[in-house]
């Protein structure tokens, strides 16, 4: 391969430094603070071995185990539900109401969904109010329906949020496979629909959705924002335990927390390895299973139930979001009332001056981040060489690395570096950190339409004497506006949802809807929490809806353009 310096390489190198640099810096700082504590802080009591200190943290083993079990179970259940939903999705025409449900859950940040779920399923939540109203128990039951020690509620929350994401991913990948003819063929051989999917289609989809599935896995294993609201408390999952250690005033905990951050990363990599080995095993035994010609109808019986369950899960999620809205407008709503005793705008009005600030900052950060991501992505597509083998597989994977590395694993270390350089607490630093998570999505959404743009358009423009910049601005960008709009919507929703990057790197000076929601989730006023959670879910949803309608408007008038639905 030739590495002559040209603009394309320069853009790629820039992207790598911008996207992967912070991760390496953060990890490096973690290692430094583990091994070079003296340089870290010259304070008495740091002589203890950080690994030893970490291991003696009460409940560490439980935290690791619940992290593992919740992360793995949530991923497996989400995958299963999403796949089966898609199977039915392709059979029947799905009502637009259900699609709206998926989009709403897809765009809502994890925290908003988690908060909504607590409104719904907590012992004093809506479900138990309903039960209390028909039976006659006086007080909410003393049972674990959220924050349970086994993380069941955390799994539920993750599933509610990840199923729509995976459905989206699977539908996109199914369109790349001639599903219908495979199904006809396999059914003619005597296999029922469910068997066809399990034996023929899913094995072919899996390589296409493996990366997104691993993103879900990494998130489920190491997220903070959902675990804080729904997860176990005594002890919490590992990521939350580490966040507490990082934020503890006890400096002696910083080095052990850094060890823990590395442990969290190892944990994720370990589970990746296990999943990979499982895949190898499945492939081996799966083929043997396929070759015995068994046509039993067992899956045909399970599937419809599973689909009903998927619908229930999504209905649950949407109803939770709706409950946030109701809480935000209620002026009195005490146990055991099923409906608010009175509705009013008072909470909204009271919070308005503050909300404007957070909302403004959130939207500003989200817009700037998304804008930079789109500009970088366009620069990339404009300069990339298609014949370069690295462009095909390796580069997209490298860009996605931030989605696989636990945030808790490097962000604190990164902030230490930012502190030294005076960047901590600056808008630039926060936007940069958001960019790590926004850019991969923007890149993926824009890549296909951009690369498959008819090259004749550019050639005929050149023949007319139109320069590259003019071509970009007046030809390519208008043609690709739907993909840019889709990328903007996703970029904004990803940025709005970021918690740890804002918390650690923003140094508390920059607060967004998400940091506010989590701070308030520890508060005692559900009405206020309802307002902020509603807003937090609303902003990305508006971004999605806006992108959809604008692009449909353009699409309707120019039938040659590619729609956002791609």
């Amino acid at each position, binding site marked *: 391969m030739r590495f002559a310096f040209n603009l394309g390489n320069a853009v790629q190198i820039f992207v790598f430094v911008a996207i992967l640099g912070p991760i390496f810096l953060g990890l490096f700082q973690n290692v430094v603070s583990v091994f070079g504590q003296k340089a870290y802080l010259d304070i008495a009591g740091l002589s203890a071995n950080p690994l030893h200190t970490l291991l003696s943290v009460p409940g560490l083993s439980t935290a690791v185990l619940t992290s593992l079990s919740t992360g793995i179970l949530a991923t497996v259940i989400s995958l299963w539900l999403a796949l089966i939903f898609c199977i039915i999705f392709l059979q029947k025409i799905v009502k637009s109401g259900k699609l709206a449900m998926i989009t709403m859950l897809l765009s809502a940040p994890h925290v908003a969904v988690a908060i909504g779920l607590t409104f719904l399923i907590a012992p004093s939540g809506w479900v138990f109010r309903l039960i209390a109203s028909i039976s006659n128990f006086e007080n909410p039951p003393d049972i674990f329906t959220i924050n349970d020690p086994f993380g069941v509620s955390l799994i539920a929350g993750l599933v509610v949020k990840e199923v729509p994401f995976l459905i989206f991913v699977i539908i996109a990948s199914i369109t790349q496979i001639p599903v219908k003819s495979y199904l006809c063929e396999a059914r*003619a051989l005597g296999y029922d629909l469910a068997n066809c999917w399990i034996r*023929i289609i899913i094995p072919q989809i899996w390589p296409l959705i493996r990366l997104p599935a691993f993103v879900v896995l990494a998130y489920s294993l190491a997220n903070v924002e959902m675990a804080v609201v729904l997860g176990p408390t005594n002890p919490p999952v590992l990521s939350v335990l580490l966040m507490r250690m990082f934020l503890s005033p006890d400096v002696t905990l910083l080095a052990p927390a850094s060890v823990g951050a590395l442990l969290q990363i190892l944990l994720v990599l370990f589970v990746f390895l296990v999943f990979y080995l499982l895949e190898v095993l499945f492939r081996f035994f799966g083929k043997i299973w396929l*070759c015995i010609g068994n046509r039993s109808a067992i899956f045909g019986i399970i599937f419809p139930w599973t689909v009903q369950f998927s619908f229930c899960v999504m209905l649950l999620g949407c109803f939770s979001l709706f409950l946030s809205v109701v809480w935000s407008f209620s002026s009195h709503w005490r146990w055991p009332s099923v409906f608010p005793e009175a509705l009013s705008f008072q909470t909204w009005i009271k919070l308005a001056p503050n909300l404007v600030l957070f909302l403004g900052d959130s939207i500003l950060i989200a817009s700037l981040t998304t804008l930079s991501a789109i500009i970088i992505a366009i620069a990339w597509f404009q300069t990339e060489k298609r014949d370069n083998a690295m462009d095909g597989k390796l580069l997209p994977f490298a860009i996605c690395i931030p989605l696989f590395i636990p945030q808790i694993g490097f962000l604190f270390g990164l902030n230490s570096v930012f502190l030294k350089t005076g960047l901590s607490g600056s808008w630039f630093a926060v936007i940069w950190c958001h960019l790590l998570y926004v850019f991969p999505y923007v890149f993926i959404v824009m890549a296909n339409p951009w690369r498959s743009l008819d090259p004749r358009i550019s050639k005929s423009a050149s023949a007319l004497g139109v320069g590259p910049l003019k071509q970009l601005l007046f030809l390519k960008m208008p043609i690709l506006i739907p993909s840019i709009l889709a990328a903007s919507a996703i970029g904004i929703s990803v940025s709005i949802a970021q918690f740890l990057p804002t918390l650690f790197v923003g140094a508390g000076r920059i607060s967004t809807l998400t940091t506010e929601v989590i701070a308030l989730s520890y508060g005692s006023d559900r009405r206020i929490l309802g307002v902020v959670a509603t807003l937090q879910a609303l902003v990305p949803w508006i971004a999605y809806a806006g992108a959809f309608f604008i692009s449909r408007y353009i699409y309707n008038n120019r039938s040659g353009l590619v729609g956002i639905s791609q």
Partner: protein
Amino acid sequence: MSLILEEITISLKRGKKLIDGLSLSVAHGEIFTVMGPSGSGKSTLLDAVGGNLGKNFDLKGELTLNEQDLLLLPPEKRNIGLLYQDAILFPHLSVGENLAFGLKDKKQGRAKRRAEIDKALRQAGLDGFYDRDPATLSGGQRSRAALMRTLLSEPAALLLDEPFSKLDLDMRDEIRSFVFSSIYERNIPALMVTHDPSDAVAANGPSISIQVI
């Protein structure tokens, strides 16, 4: 008389008719040819018989195979094999595994099944192709493998949808005679749609022409 279509009418929901009152019967070991230009609803007819008609179609009439009413059965219960112009082999399985997937599970035991498949591969001139990736096969090899897979599932009837139209001219006769002789050998009814008159001649059976309505 085994595969019987009576007064089959297919129309788009709240739309135009594609097939109007078609009746035909196909005997065992017979290949019935349906001729017609593209757009005449030939493939739709096969979809109707095979049970793969989309939800946007309406189907009226009677359809029986060996006295069994097919209309309400899902495709996998009809016991009817398919052979398309694009011979579809599942890309995640080897050639042999594709055949094994078709082979009924009446045959138990790995060795017995393997012997059965090897025999089928030999018949199809694909000796030693068990572990080959389907993507490396030629068009004719794919057609034969797909046919063998279908036959291993022991269908009670066979539907052929322009099965030879994509093959090179020099292979077409060879594959055609292989397919047809396999059908005669198993003595099952076959319904073939094609727009190639030479197919009908070679089938040496009854045929009808349908037109665009």
